[in-house]
């Protein structure tokens, strides 16, 4: 076992890898090692967040109000 956490793994795995991005300073590495897909991952999530809410949810939420009044 080389290290206990994934974070540490990210930081130390650069030693034995020769890709050009890995020779950066600590701060740069945190930013620079962010692969392109990380922003895509947020986009994927945000694209669902931004979808209009289907009627089934609006109906459910309005039903909550009804049950509350009873």
């Amino acid at each position, binding site marked *: 076992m080389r290290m*206990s*956490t*994934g*974070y*540490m*793994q*990210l930081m130390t*795995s650069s030693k034995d890898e020769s890709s050009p991005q890995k020779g950066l300073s600590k701060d740069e590495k945190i930013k620079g090692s962010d*692969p*392109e*897909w*990380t922003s*895509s*991952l*947020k*986009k*994927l*999530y*945000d*694209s*669902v*967040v*931004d*979808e209009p*809410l*289907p009627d*089934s*949810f609006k109906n*459910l*939420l309005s039903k*909550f*109000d009804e049950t*509350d009044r009873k």
Partner: protein
Amino acid sequence: MSKNTEKRELPERSAQDKRDFKRELTEVVPHLRAFARGLCGRPDMADDLVQEALLKAWAAQERFEPGTSMRAWTFVILRNAYLTDMRRNRFRGEYDETVAERILTAPAGQEEPLHLSDLHRALLTLPPERREALLLVGAGGFSYEEAANICGCAVGTIKSRVGRARAALSSMMEDGDIPDRDLSDPAAHRAILEELDEVAAGRGEAAAGK
């Protein structure tokens, strides 16, 4: 959630508290949908899960502490609903080619751009505990601590899972080599569900890493 099982006095909720709860619950629905979609990959199943989670959250609203994070609280409920459903094999028997085809062929206008659908597919190849960790931290913007609370495991465990998920995705996305391990492959689908059992039963990395 296990913390809530111990008996404690629940404060009386004012009408204002109830209105706040409803408002906050409503606000968090899009996030629940996004998390669920990432977890299970199927929009229809994801929305079913969210509905289930909303019903449970509504029923348990007395246990929500006003002022705390509604998103974190409901994510725990959603996650539990997901794991429970998976363990009950609710979706296992339902697998068939037509369903898979319908889901994989998104309706017009709902198609993800190519790189996003690749990413989504790659995400679904990850073991579920790593997938959820990455979703919470990398997409949902939760801190490691918050994600650890949601998943009921140690912060170090979450960090490890996120790190492994990131490494796996990076290599898949860089090489353009995404294993065919999504819903279109019954054997792979089964393997994913079996892994889920492990996580749901608390025998995932949390148990191994303590």
